[in-house]
């Protein structure tokens, strides 16, 4: 062990028997020692001049200037001395960790450990698993050929990181993968990883700046010492050597700072490029979605109108069929009466059957045609409504994706809602009804219902949104009914809301239903 003495109370012990220091460390330690030496000299010289002053001896101008400088820089000199001592201890401690080193060497030298490590890397299952992971990433995440090549060129340890990053994406359905990728790109974790490295580089620059400041002060002190020594005719060679070493150290620090600054700038530029490119991709995607979603919504609105028209037409046809069935029923009743009369006239059953055959066939065919068409309309309506639901789902899916892109870009948290886009297409229940052929139900010409309804709308208690009289001509064109077409109240109750919806007259269901019931009540009372 070699002991260095810096003044009475400044002892620094340097462990020389540890590992061999690098040339850089030797250079650094040398520079620190020089600086410590200069602080020691400054302190010693200050003490000497102070003693001279206390003995009332005359001070030379240089001694006076030195004293002024030493008093002014007293704190800086003390700090420099402390940091350099600490630095020297640090260098020697770093290089003097024989146990750790030995342990590490022992570990790596352990034959079992080595074998185990080799076995691990050589395990065929492990290799297969890694290959499978790689294939999974390429296929399931959907890397294109260019990116596959980029992934394959990535070192194995980085591939592991990529697999972890993309892990959550394996479970995501195809349509939502883009949201997942955008989320990964906007992931704070990645940015933080870089930020911490930037912070370390910035800390290093700050440390170098402080050291440089101290070195400058040290140089300044040395210059005073040289001037003082020159005045006294003392040798200055060693002092000049010290000052040149300190100056060299300052240059080294400046160079080191410049290198680190370059690295930092490069990293900041890389980060900025990444952030800009990421924003460009997101903006382009959102812009494209905005551009395309508008016409999609317009098409969907026209589909909603078609849906209303389909619903209205189906109901109008259903009411027409109902009326035709009632007509057939009426004919059948009269036919039965004729049949009984034939029997009363003593006509044989075979003759009656033959006579009525054609008429019965007409009735059966009419009913069969109605039933066939009714079923066809129901099937078609279901099919068309499924198509409209599919269109609604597609538009909703893209709107939701656009919103997700915006949310991700703005760094907002994901809403905890059910994933609409993966919902199955809703099956819209098809309205079915029992056809009433009762003859005691009041039937009125449709014109009569419309004029009474329009009259009813003049009532002051009617909701404003409903106060739009029905154009009977348009109503008849839309339904395909003639002026004298007769309907009952249930028919009117069914067709009116659909007609209003088709014509864009929006009334709350509850209000409309209550008004229709109220209308029926008034109609009945006025008819009494």
């Amino acid at each position, binding site marked *: 062990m070699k002991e260095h003495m810096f003044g009475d109370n400044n002892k620094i012990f340097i462990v020389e028997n540890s590992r061999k220091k690098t040339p850089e460390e030797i250079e650094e330690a040398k520079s620190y020692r020089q600086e410590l030496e200069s602080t020691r000299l400054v302190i010693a010289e200050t003490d000497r001049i102070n003693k001279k002053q206390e003995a009332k001896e005359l001070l030379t101008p240089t001694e006076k200037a030195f004293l002024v400088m030493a008093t002014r820089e007293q704190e800086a000199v003390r700090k420099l001395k402390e940091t350099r001592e600490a630095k020297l201890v640090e260098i020697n401690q770093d290089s003097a960790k024989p146990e750790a080193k030995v342990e590490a060497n022992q570990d790596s030298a352990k034959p079992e450990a080595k074998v185990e490590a080799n076995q691990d890397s050589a395990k065929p299952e492990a290799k297969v698993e890694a290959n499978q992971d790689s294939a999974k990433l390429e296929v399931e*995440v*959907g890397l294109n050929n260019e*990116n596959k090549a*980029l992934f394959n060129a990535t070192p194995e*340890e*980085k591939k592991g*990181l*990529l697999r972890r*990053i993309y892990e959550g994406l394996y479970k995501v359905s195809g349509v939502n993968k*883009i949201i997942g*990728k955008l989320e*990964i*790109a906007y992931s704070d974790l*990645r940015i933080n*990883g870089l930020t911490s490295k930037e912070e370390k580089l910035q800390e290093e620059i700050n440390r170098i700046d402080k050291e440089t400041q101290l070195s400058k002060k040290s140089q300044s002190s040395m210059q005073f010492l040289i001037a003082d020594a020159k005045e006294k005719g003392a040798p200055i060679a060693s002092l000049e050597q010290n000052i040149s070493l300190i100056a060299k150290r300052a240059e080294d620090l400046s160079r080191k700072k410049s290198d680190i600054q370059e690295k930092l700038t490069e*990293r900041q530029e890389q980060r900025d490029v*990444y952030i800009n*490119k*990421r924003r460009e*991709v*997101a903006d382009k*995607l959102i812009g*494209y*979605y905005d551009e*395309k979603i508008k*016409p*999609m919504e317009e*098409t*969907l609105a*026209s*589909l909603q109108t*078609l849906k209303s028209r*389909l619903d209205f*037409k189906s109901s109008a046809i259903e009411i*027409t*069929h109902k009326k*035709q069935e009632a*007509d057939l029923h009426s004919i059948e009743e*009269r*036919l039965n009466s004729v049949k009984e*009369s*034939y029997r009363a*006239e*003593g006509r044989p059953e075979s003759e009656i059957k033959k*006579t009525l055959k054609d*008429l019965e066939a*007409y009735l059966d*065919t*009419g009913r069969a*045609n*109605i039933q066939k*068409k009714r079923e066809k*309309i129901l099937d078609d309506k279901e099919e*068309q409504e499924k*198509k*409209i639901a599919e*269109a609604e789902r*597609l538009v909703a*899916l*893209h709107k939701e994706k656009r919103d997700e892109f915006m949310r991700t870009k703005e760094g907002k948290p994901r809403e905890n809602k059910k994933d609409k886009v993966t919902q199955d297409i809703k099956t819209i229940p098809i309205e079915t009804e029992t056809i009433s052929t009762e003859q005691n139900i009041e039937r009125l010409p449709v014109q009569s219902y419309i004029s009474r309804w329009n009259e009813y709308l003049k009532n002051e208690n009617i909701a404003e949104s409903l106060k739009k009289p029905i154009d009977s001509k348009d109503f008849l064109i839309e339904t395909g009914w003639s002026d004298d077409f007769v309907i009952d109240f249930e028919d009117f109750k069914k067709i009116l809301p659909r007609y209003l919806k088709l014509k864009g007259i929006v009334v709350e269901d509850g209000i409309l239903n209550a008004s229709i019931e109220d209308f029926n009540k008034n109609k009945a009372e006025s008819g009494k």
Partner: protein
Amino acid sequence: MTQNNDTNNQNIQILHTQLNDLLEEARKVGKEIDETNQKAREEIDAIHSKINDSLAQIKQTGSGLDKADKEAGDALDSLILQRVNELEE
């Protein structure tokens, strides 16, 4: 007897006339049903055709967006892969 037969024939004739009227009425209703069904087919087919067109239009736009998704996804993959390499340097 002859009078009875005449009455009977007259009644049968009335019944035949009633039956013919009913037959005519049934023909008319049958024709109405055919017309209603024919018109319904035309009107509903026209609506179906428009629905199919609109759905096709939405699907086409959707596939354009899916293509944009793919392009953006590739660009993001490329960025992520490069970024990981930069981060670990």
